[in-house]
């Protein structure tokens, strides 16, 4: 981008984002990753990752396509194991317990670590059933309790008012942005501690994007959030810390302001200044 443009965007960023940014270093660690390596068959997708994320913070992961962002995120709730050829070494601790240990049941892990995907993926069911799905598989059958959970979760995702009169309708009748908030609500329904988000706004229009960004700022009060994004401005706007991935490595991990204003690595700088793809 050329010079003078930024003078303008500068103003934008200040008003909408900068005020929300807070950085804590004294908080508890949520995920503590040490020497993580991951292979898809022969592809070495993650190389010696060392990364700690903190409670009630938003951690952003940025990097060019194919650098391993999604892979790292999916390792945190072991969704990556759905790929049969995956091999993982190293350690990830979640609240002090090693999650890569086979004794840590994935079903268990995933009820603590919720996930929101790039493309909104509601189930082809009613809005109500989408939210109730999680609680139901965990054995909650009472209509009354389910009703309450559904309302609370939808409120939590700031979508209650828009859908409260059509809970029995198919979720695919919603717009893309609404679907994405529905998916967030669905995750909230099982009351996780952490929410992983893989480019949650990349399929959305600017307005919906903004709503989701606002929502993330709200959720941060109760949840720890890790978000993958290819949109640097978004990372700059909403995250407390940012990790820059390249070719499966963490090139730089720091407080967001530092990463964007004062990158220590040339490659980070190259990326931020748009020399990729």
């Amino acid at each position, binding site marked *: 981008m050329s010079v003078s443009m930024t003078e303008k965007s500068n103003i934008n960023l200040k008003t909408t984002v900068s005020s929300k940014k807070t950085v804590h270093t004294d908080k508890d660690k949520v995920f503590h990753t040490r020497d993580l390596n991951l292979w898809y068959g022969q592809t070495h997708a993650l190389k010696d990752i060392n990364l700690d994320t903190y409670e009630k913070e938003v951690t952003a992961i940025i990097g060019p396509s194919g650098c391993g962002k999604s892979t790292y995120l999916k390792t945190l709730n072991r969704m990556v194991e759905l790929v049969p050829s995956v091999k993982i070494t190293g350690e990830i601790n979640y609240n002090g317990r090693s999650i890569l240990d086979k004794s840590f049941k994935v079903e*268990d892990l995933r*009820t603590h670590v919720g996930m929101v995907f790039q493309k909104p993926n509601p189930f082809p069911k009613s809005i109500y059933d989408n939210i109730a799905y999680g609680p139901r598989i965990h054995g909650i059958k009472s209509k009354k309790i389910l009703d*309450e959970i559904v309302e609370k979760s939808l409120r939590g995702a700031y979508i209650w008012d828009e859908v409260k009169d059509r809970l029995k309708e198919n979720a695919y009748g919603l717009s893309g942005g609404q679907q994405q908030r529905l998916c967030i609500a669905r995750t909230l329904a099982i009351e996780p501690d952490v929410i992983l988000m893989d480019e949650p706004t990349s399929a959305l229009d600017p307005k919906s994007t903004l709503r989701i960004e606002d929502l993330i700022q709200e959720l941060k009060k109760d949840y720890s959030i890790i978000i993958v994004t290819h949109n640097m401005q978004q990372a700059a706007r909403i995250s407390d810390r940012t990790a820059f991935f390249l070719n499966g490595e963490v090139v730089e991990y720091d407080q967001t302001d530092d990463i964007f204003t004062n990158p220590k690595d040339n490659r980070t700088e190259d990326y931020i200044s748009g020399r990729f793809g």
Partner: protein
Amino acid sequence: MKYVDANTVQKRMNTRILKNNILKYLFLIATLFGLFVLAILIIQVLRDGLQWIDWNFLTGKLSNDAERAGIMGAILGTFWMMIVVAPVTLILGIGTAIYLELYAKKGVFQSFIQTNISNLAGVPSIVYGILGLTIFVRAMDLGNIVLAGGLTLSLLILPIVIVAAQEAIRSVPQHLSEASYGMGATKWQTVKNIILPAALPGILTGAILALSRAIGETAPLTVLGIPALILPFPEGIFDKFTALPMQIYYWTLDSSLVAEYVNLAAATIVVLLLLLFLLNSTAIIIRNKFQQRY
């Protein structure tokens, strides 16, 4: 306020996981069941038939005498029929597929043809037999010769070949034809130089699989009227004939007349399965060898 109680969740977790694991094995067993039956079938057929296969059996003429009977006539009958079926279905099948995929305007007529083809694929083979009897044997007065049988089987497998060819053509990435159009190529030039060569392995694979379906078809031939005993070898597509599956049928039926006919039927099945195995392997080889990386 927490709705999801961590303790109940934990308790249920183990039963849920156990249920998942048990059913997983049940599903696996169901999957293997079919293969198990397949194994029995093959073993059974080999046991009954294998020691009856020798040079005489393969090259000899049909006979009432089980010891003397051979299936060269049936092999040749099947061969000549395929000589009819292969070119007819390839030309008609590829032509129709190209038309539907690349030329036909999307609309009522195109979807009518498409529906029609998929329905034809579901018409029982014996109905094709009746069609063949009425049209080729009677109306065209061909009699029950190789050509009549071959044309009947051609119609039978035509829908399969068309659908396979359509899929092959569809799976040629659009960006290849776009590149060709982008160079100023006309439609036919693009079809001939880019799309067909890229689709050919897929088309051939589908066609070979369809052929192997035709080789095993019995029902339409029974309707056309294949004699129970015919000795001379067919020497072309205008001769009367018998075919491998028909021979299996008759020998199975007559097995209580002459006990050894069961063995002859089994031996013929071995030959037929071997033939199909060869054809399928060819199809797989073609598919693997010419699979394109785009």
